[in-house]
């Protein structure tokens, strides 16, 4: 699936609910599901600095595709992290670099992407794109 298709899928899943509570319940469920990062990577080295909830991110590169795993100590953050991984993990560096994460806005989670939000999600997207950039340079 293309990132656009995955994003549409997520939008459809969320559009079943009008209510913020149902949306957050779904997000929380997704947070519980997150394929957890390998314990060896849950170190300060893999920590994304955000103010309050901590996010760990790991990336690997196989068959010219970037694979991400991540974790967070806050479950809502983890839910959103999971969405980002669903969209970007397993994609090529170029696709990741070009990806627009606007779907978070469409499912009503825009405020979590504010640079001033204390959860480091914007830094996480930056970090994912940085990895993609590094792997792209390696390929060249």
């Amino acid at each position, binding site marked *: 699936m293309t990132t656009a298709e995955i994003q549409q899928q997520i939008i459809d899943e969320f559009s079943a609910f009008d209510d*913020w509570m149902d949306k957050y319940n779904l997000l929380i469920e997704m947070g519980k599901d997150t394929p957890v990062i390998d314990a060896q990577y849950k170190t300060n080295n893999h920590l994304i600095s955000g*103010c*309050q909830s901590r996010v760990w991110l790991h990336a690997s590169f196989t068959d010219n595709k970037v694979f991400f795993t991540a974790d967070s100590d806050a*479950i809502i953050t983890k839910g959103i992290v999971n969405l980002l991984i669903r969209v970007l993990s397993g994609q090529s560096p170029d696709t990741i670099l070009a990806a627009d994460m606007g779907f978070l806005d469409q499912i009503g989670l825009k405020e979590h992407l504010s640079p001033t939000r*204390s959860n480091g999600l914007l830094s996480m997207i930056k970090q994912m794109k940085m990895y993609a950039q590094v792997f792209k340079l390696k390929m060249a």
Partner: protein
Amino acid sequence: MSHHIDLEDIRSEFPALHQLVYNKPLVYLDNAATTQKPTSVIKRMFQYYEQENSNIHRGVHHLSQQATEAFEAARAYVANLIHAQYAHEVIFTRGATEAINLVASSLGELLLQTNDSVLVTAMEHHSNFVPWQQLCKRKNAHLLTLPFSREGELDLEEYAALLAKNPKIVAFTHISNTLGTINPIREMIGMAHEKGIPVLIDGAQSIAHKAVDVQDLDCDFFVFSAHKAYGPMGAGVLYGKQKWLDQMPPYQYGGEMVDKVSISQTSFNVLPFKFEAGTPDVAAVLGMETALRFISDVGYDWIGNHEHQLVDYATTELSQIADIRFFGQSAHKASVVSFLVGQIHPFDLGTLLDKMGVAVRTGHHCAQPVMDFYGIHGTVRASFALYNTIEEVDVFVSAVKKAVRMLS
């Protein structure tokens, strides 16, 4: 306001309280971070800028005279409110943080030598911790830290033991912004004074809640910010005893604090101007005066009673939640409730409360040593002001319950 105080009347004076957040009525419980402002304060500043604005102190023209008089009258009012002996013992600053940095830098310069020490507590806000820590670092001096109990109380015996090490300066908070503890400052100041040690009290969390009499307390310095006491941002107070302020070197240079300047040397102005460099924020100072008058009109007795009810009720109601842990359970507590529920991250709880219109603060509250003590990363903190209601506590508690259900 007279003796009969109507909470609805009070609330009607705070425009910011009457708004919807995500279509829910705002329940504002982040008052320890900053309070909302009554219309009288907002209007005072509005009027200043519409009719009175001028730079002060050096102007012979009417607007400047008038603004200077209003500014100095505000100083006299503050001095009177906190029972300072002289109006010139009241220095206007940008806020509590600037006031503490001023004293740490200037009194530190005056008193601290290599191997000396400064005593603070482990429950300080970073603003009353880091300036002293860094001063000690610069001076090769030692920072002594008085620990607190699991209930959030300071131990006066340990305090006495640390005073025995002869620190040159003691600085601690009147009320903890994280734990809510009201410290026994009068006793602690007395103990320090027996050894001739000057004491700075961080009143950032007390001026909105408790009457302060600096002469009765006999503290050497007392600082607070207007914005945590219904006043505007950008104004704060450093009270200092004349005998210290007279000896201390200036902190910043320029403007009214200068007396005579020549290319080779400079002499400085008298108190309070010596410590007020640059154009002061006249509007914010007038707003602060109005805010303190507002507090006075409501009355510290009424405020104390009312907020006590809110905290007690909130604590009782929250206690029904399984696995809730409170941080700060002193018998002497101001209007702050810090807590965690089970393994739930404060960020998650805060995010869901926000969605229900309830504004609380989550995180370390700029008091990381407190978090380290409990081995946690943060708490959820609800803090009350004179305008909060029992009904708001109900909304808050049921929002917490709902959020906990969602997150469990």
